[in-house]
């Protein structure tokens, strides 16, 4: 291991992230997040396309309870206005994301996905990433989702179809929900130390110092945000910008090549038509 990695790992802020030991089963059973993930997984399982009686109602109620339990276990931001705005944005993002994967109609899926993207853009704005918030709305909600809707309407004019109302069967469904629940659970468990540190009382002076550092020239919340984004993008990441441009060009050529695949050239078509 390099010296750099070692010093980085020993840095206090990085060491805070990972919990030291595994929690006992009693701790797990008393944890609100555990029950929240259990209820949320069950809710998604019930809401996914299937033929369970009252699946939607039951899944919705369980999902709301699970989301409330989970949010109650997160450390507070300090200010109730900040907290309310964050909860609203997180609710829009996650609720719309859950609706995306549970909608029977792909058109509704795409529209819910656009709402989820708008929630994500709000989260970006809230965290001081103004340019990325705007770029997400323009690129995702403005271009990608519209392209998706175009393709849905081109490829599936009949609307409701069988395969949207069923899944691959109960076994893949159950196990993918289980995998995702275990993923979120492990993440929550590993971030235990971070949560303990976040719930410890902080002096107002430290909070003010952090806010001041964010607003300094070069900080994320400084008013010269775009200038800073440009500076870092076109100095340190210049080669990556060139590579990203090349990638976009390659994708463009690839998409056109795929779309006209197997068709004769236009001149040949005209010659054949005139013959």
């Amino acid at each position, binding site marked *: 291991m390099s010296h750099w990695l070692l010093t980085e790992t020993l840095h206090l*802020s990085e060491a*805070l992230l990972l919990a030291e030991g595994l929690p006992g089963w009693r701790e797990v059973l008393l944890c609100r997040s555990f029950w929240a993930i259990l209820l949320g997984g069950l809710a998604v399982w019930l809401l996914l*396309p299937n*033929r369970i009686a009252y699946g939607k109602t039951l899944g919705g109620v369980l999902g709301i309870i699970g989301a409330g339990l*989970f949010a109650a276990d*997160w*450390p*507070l*931001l*300090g200010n109730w206005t*900040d907290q309310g705005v*964050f909860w609203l944005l997180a609710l829009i993002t996650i609720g719309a994301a859950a609706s995306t*994967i549970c909608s029977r109609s792909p058109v509704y*899926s795409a529209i819910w*996905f656009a709402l989820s993207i708008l929630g*994500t853009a709000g989260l970006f704005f809230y*965290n001081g*990433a103004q340019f*990325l918030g705007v770029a*997400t709305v323009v*690129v*995702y909600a403005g271009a*990608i989702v519209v392209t*998706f809707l175009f*393709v849905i309407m*081109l*490829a599936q004019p009949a609307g*409701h*179809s*069988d395969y*949207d109302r069923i*899944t691959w069967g109960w076994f*893949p469904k159950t196990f*993918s929900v289980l*995998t995702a629940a275990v*993923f979120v659970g492990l*993440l*929550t468990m590993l*971030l235990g130390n*971070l949560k303990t540190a*976040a719930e410890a009382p902080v002096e107002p002076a430290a*909070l003010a110092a*952090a*806010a001041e550092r*964010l607003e*300094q*020239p070069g*900080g*994320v919340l400084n008013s010269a945000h775009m200038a800073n984004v440009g500076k870092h*993008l076109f100095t*340190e990441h210049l080669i*990556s910008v060139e590579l*990203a441009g090349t990638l*976009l060009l390659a*994708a*463009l050529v*690839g*998409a056109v090549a*795929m779309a006209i*695949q197997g068709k004769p050239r236009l001149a040949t078509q005209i010659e054949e038509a005139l013959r």
Partner: protein
Amino acid sequence: MNELSLLYNYLAVGGILFALGLIGFLVRRNMIVMFLCAEMMLQGVSVSLIGFGRYHGSLAAAGIASAGQAEWSQAAGPWGGQMLVIFIITVAACEAGIAMALVLMLARRSGSLDAAFWQDLREEGQPAFVDQEVPEERTEDRVWPVLTPAGVRPESDPDQLLHRPRV
């Protein structure tokens, strides 16, 4: 604002978004919904990266140090997350373009967006996937949205309805 709490909350939201995208990708059969779910996983990662960037910005005095390479890279710390998200968005746009061309070609050949149509690509010796239950279309699924009539119905010539004046 408590920056540690903010970081925790953003990591949790990012993790949940990633998990929901994972479920959707594995469970849904519509190829377009599968790609939407892939984009959702990318969004989850982006949310986490933005949270990390903000947290690093609150830790270090950024951008003031200009002498020396080490200080320069330290000053760039808070912006690393946002730079990475810019490239994630670029790659996602490329992916969406290619994926849409592919899905359109596949849908033109098979006539549907069902991923199970292409199960001939499975390995030799694997049993074929057969649907256990295909639900019947319910009556409420057959109802299509209708536009409410607005204004006065225009007078129409019954002769003109029967033949078109020009072709």
